[in-house]
C-alpha cells in the first residue's frame, strides 16, 4: 500500500510537471490515466520496495551531492587521459565485494560505479561486482571502500 501511494504521488507529480495545462478536462484525464497505469502496473507485479525505494529518500540527497562531486572529478581525469593518449592508460579488471545487504543497495553501488567515468561495473552476481577501470588508480580508490561505505550507510537508515 505504501508503495502504491508513493507511486501515485510520483506519477501525479510527473504529469503535473510535464503538462503545463491545468484545465478540468486534462486534470480528470490525468486521474483516469493514473488509475489505469496503477492497474496495469499492479497486474505486472512491479510495485514493491525495489521499485519504490521510499525508505531511502531521506538520506539520498546528501549521497547524490557526494556522488556528483565524484562524477565531476573522475570526468576530469578521464578527459585528461583521452587527450594524453593510449599509452597513459592502464586498464584493469578486478572483482570487488559489495557489503550491502539488500539488492537495492547493491544496485545503487553498482550504478554509482558505472556513473563515475573511469570505472564500469561489468557484472553483479551475489555480492561480487566485477569492475573494469581505465586506470589502476581508479581501482585503488574503489578498493579503499569509501563509496561502498556511503552506500551501506544510505541503506542502513531504514
Amino acid at each position: 500500500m505504501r508503495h502504491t501511494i508513493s507511486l501515485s504521488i510520483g506519477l501525479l507529480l510527473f504529469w503535473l510537471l510535464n503538462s503545463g495545462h491545468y484545465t478540468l478536462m486534462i486534470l480528470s484525464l490525468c486521474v483516469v490515466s493514473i488509475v489505469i497505469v496503477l492497474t496495469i502496473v499492479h497486474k505486472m507485479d512491479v510495485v514493491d520496495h525495489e521499485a519504490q525505494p521510499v525508505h531511502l529518500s531521506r538520506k539520498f540527497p546528501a549521497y547524490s551531492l557526494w556522488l556528483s562531486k565524484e562524477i565531476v572529478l573522475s570526468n576530469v581525469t578521464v578527459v585528461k587521459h583521452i587527450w594524453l593518449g593510449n599509452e597513459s592508460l592502464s586498464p584493469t579488471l578486478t572483482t570487488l565485494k559489495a557489503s550491502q545487504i539488500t539488492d537495492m543497495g547493491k544496485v545503487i553501488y553498482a550504478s554509482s560505479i558505472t556513473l563515475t567515468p573511469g570505472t564500469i561495473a561489468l557484472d553483479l552476481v551475489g555480492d561480487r561486482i566485477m569492475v573494469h577501470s581505465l586506470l589502476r588508480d581508479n581501482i585503488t580508490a574503489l578498493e579503499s571502500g569509501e563509496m561502498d561505505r556511503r552506500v551501506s550507510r544510505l541503506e542502513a537508515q531504514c
Partner: protein
Amino acid sequence: MFAVVMLSGIYGLLSASFFVVMDAVDVAFTEASVGAGISTLLMLTAVAMTGRTEHVTRHKPYLAFAVVFVTGCLLIYGTLDMPYFGSPDAPSHQHVAPRYINDSMQETGMPNMVTSVLASYRGFDTFGEVTVIFTAGIGVLALLSVVRGRESDAEIETLNDSMHEQYLILRIVIKMLIPFILLYAFYVQFHGDFGPGGGFQAGVIFASAIILYVMLFGLGTARRVINQSFIQILSAIGVLIYGCVGLVSILNGGSFLDYSVLSDDALAGQHLGILLIELGVGCTVASVMIIIFFKFAERNEYIQSKNGKST
C-alpha cells in the same frame, strides 16, 4: 547484418533530427519512436530469427544501377522546375495550407495545427491509417501465430528467478521506469492538442513499455499479465471507436466524421470528436504493436523449441 540494421536505426534517428530542423515536430516524434524504435526493434528480432550470415557473391548489379540511375536523373530533372527550397511563395503554401494555418484555431480550437488537420480536416486519411495498422496487425497474426501448449507456473517461476539473479540492475531500474513510461504514453495521448504528440505516438510509447517488460520478464510472465485475445479485441475496438464516432455524426445529421454535430457547440463537438478518435488511434496502435512484437517473439520461441527437438 547487425551493422546494417543499426545503421538504418541511426538513419531513423538522423532523419528525425532533420525533421526537427524542418519544423516538423510531430513527424520527428513519430519517426523517433517508429524509425529508430519499433522498426529497428522488429528488424533485430527478424535478424535474430533468420541468422546473420549473408552471401557475398552478387550477380551483376548493372541493371539495378541503370534503373536507379535513370530514376535518379528523372527526379533531379523534375526538381529543376520546383520552387526553391523554403521559398514561402511556393504554390504548396498558397492554396490549401493557409486555411489550416489561419483558421484552424477558430474552427477546431486546437493550437496544434497538425493535430487539427490530421484529426479533423483530413480525418478520413487518419481513419485509413488506423485501418492500415490494423491490417498489418492481422496480417502478422495470420502469418506468425503458432499453437502453443500451456506452460506450467513453476517453469515461469524458475525462469523468473534466474532472470532476477542475472539482471539485477536492469530489473530494478526497469521496474522503476515502467509506470512512468506508461503514464508518459497517456500524457502524450492527451496533450496532442497542444504540442507534438497524439494517439499514434502514445500507442508506440505504450507498446515500448510493454516490450521492455517482455524483454526482461520473459514471454511466459508477460503472457500471464497481458491477455492475448483481450489485446486483439482491443485493436478491433480502436478501429470501431473511430468508425462509430463517424457513424454517430451521420446519425446526428452531419456527414461522416463531422465532429461539429457531436455537441451543441461546434467547437466542443470538435474537441470531443478529436479526443475520441485519438483514443481510438492510440488503442489500435498500442495493441497492434504489442501483437506484432508478441507474435515475433512467440514464433522465435517456437522455432527454438522445434530446433531443440530435432537436434
